């Protein structure tokens, strides 16, 4: 029996009156690394906004561990989100950014919070950056700090928006390894929005691929398997980085 942590049923969404996806349904297995794929403009990032509850669906249903995500409800978050640029609070140091959810949602004393912050930053390789402001960090470091903040409340599920975008290859590989390590060691579930093929094949255990033209999910499964066996020219073109031949 499947153990799905995220369930999306018959979701239709778009913005400014334009429909991006129609009737999308999929599930994310607990403890997996799940990738949301597709060409630019197909609605990946918009779908992520719905998954984390920043936008509420009018058609269809999303549940995370049986609950509908809604950021208007002021309750302890059950998942963490890392935004594309890290989205750290600019006026707070890296350590204060990570401490923020702990101060809000736990009754821990300051010395204990400091200990957890230090451990989380060490986990993402930022032990020396605790007192720095976000503006003093590189793009990769900001993302690492973003993931440390997202993990502060020990969520079982993490959403990552374009984790490898804008990173140099070495930092990108290190980031992929960090995701795999957190997945294997802590059993965290990751939902990753990306179109970095190298990263997809390295970390993605299952995926869905959104299509802009048909406004639907055109592929689902193991990305490596889809790359090697898919007969759909759109899927083949995406995974093998080839030009899509349009019939005359």
């Amino acid at each position, binding site marked *: 029996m499947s153990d799905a942590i995220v369930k999306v049923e018959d979701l239709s969404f778009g913005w400014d009156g334009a429909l991006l996806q129609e009737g999308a349904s999929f599930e994310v297995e607990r403890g997996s690394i799940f990738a949301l794929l597709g060409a630019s403009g197909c609605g990946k990032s918009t779908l992520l906004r719905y998954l984390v509850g920043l936008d509420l669906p009018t058609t269809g249903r999303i549940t995370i561990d049986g609950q509908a995500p809604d950021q208007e409800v002021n309750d302890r978050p059950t998942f963490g989100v890392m935004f594309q640029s890290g989205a750290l609070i600019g006026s707070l140091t890296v350590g204060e950014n990570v401490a923020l959810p702990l101060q809000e949602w736990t009754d821990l004393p300051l010395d204990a919070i400091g200990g957890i912050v230090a*451990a989380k930053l060490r986990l993402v390789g930022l032990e020396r950056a605790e007192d720095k402001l976000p503006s003093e960090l590189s793009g990769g470091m900001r993302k690492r700090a973003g993931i440390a903040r997202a993990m502060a409340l*020990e969520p079982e599920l993490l959403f990552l928006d374009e984790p490898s975008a804008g990173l140099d290859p070495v930092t990108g590989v290190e980031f992929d390894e960090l995701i795999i390590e957190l997945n294997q*060691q802590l059993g965290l579930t990751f939902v990753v929005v990306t179109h970095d093929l190298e990263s997809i094949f390295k970390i993605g255990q299952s995926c869905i691929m959104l299509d802009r033209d048909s406004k639907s999910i055109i592929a689902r499964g193991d990305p490596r398997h889809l790359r090697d066996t898919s007969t759909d020219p759109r899927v083949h073109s995406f995974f093998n980085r080839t030009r899509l031949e349009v019939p005359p």
Partner: protein
Amino acid sequence: MPPAFAIALVKSSTDQGQLRLAGSLCLAEAGPLWTELRRLEASAVTGETLDFEMSEVERIDGGAMALLACLRSELHRRGVKSEFVAAGERVQRLIHLYGGDNKVARLRRRRPIGTFNQLGRATLAILQELKLVTAFFGQMVVSAASVLRSPSSANWRELPATMERAGADAVPIIVVTNFLVALAMAFQSAEQLARFGANILVADLIGISVTRELGPLMVAILVCGRSGAAFAAELGFMQVNGEIDALRTMGFGPMRYLVLPRTLALILVMPLLTLLADLAGILGGLLVGVWHLELSVRGFLNQTVRVVSLWDVSTGLLKSVAFGLAISMIACQQGLATAGGAEDVGRRTTSAVVVSLFAIIMIDAAASVLFRLAGL
């Protein structure tokens, strides 16, 4: 409900002890866990050993593990030997992930910054800011000269839109504010003037004070709050977002492309807004004169035209040009000097408004003294 964990301090000798942890350790119960750990480890002193015995831990999450690793580091720094022992395979992996089996690094002590050091840093920061301001004005002059030599190189497209935002959009607030301020001033003086039977002098008072002082000053304060803040925030956000760098790489110098159109727009709209403010102010005085001092409309207007010279209006307009130049340059300089994130945008915007207001008052005072010395 009792906690899902249990901790016991077991001493095998006077200097050997173990904290035996059992059950489920998670962040949800981190508060009581931390309190209990602190209570039990408090007696450990330098030279002793206090290990974490983990064999009966059924479940532990990252938050709880982070706390244990933090406590181990603190014990090491106090000279108490401490390790994680007898952990199962899964728990051991987590201990490793959180550095619980690493050598504990010495804590770097941060020295407080001394008074002289702080004074030195503040002086350097002021000098650095002065250098930036000087460089900005230098660049501005060079860019203006370059545009004068080759007018087609300026970004004229931005001029009408900026004039609309800074000028036309500000008309309602400027007219209403000046009307009300002059009305209030006329009311304040009406009683004194009536006492001496000098009702008609309210036209002199309002006409001269509004055209020479109140009109340009009120316009400058309102434009500073509206457009000065907007310029600083807009350029600051562009700087933070990397848009200024992008413009530079495409060959658009920020002076020529962003600062000059804004400065020119304010220089052009400020006299027009001041004229409107003068008219609104005189209208406010007229209302009080007719309604409260029983003057006729014709009488009030005749007295105003007789007493207010062209030079009175011109001094106000000249000052308004200087105010516009100062507001625009200060706001743009502060916006372009933004470094860092959203916080600095806010700081620079505030700074732009405060420094502009100060500059307006300084210019106004200097102009008053100069005009008086010149007998104008």
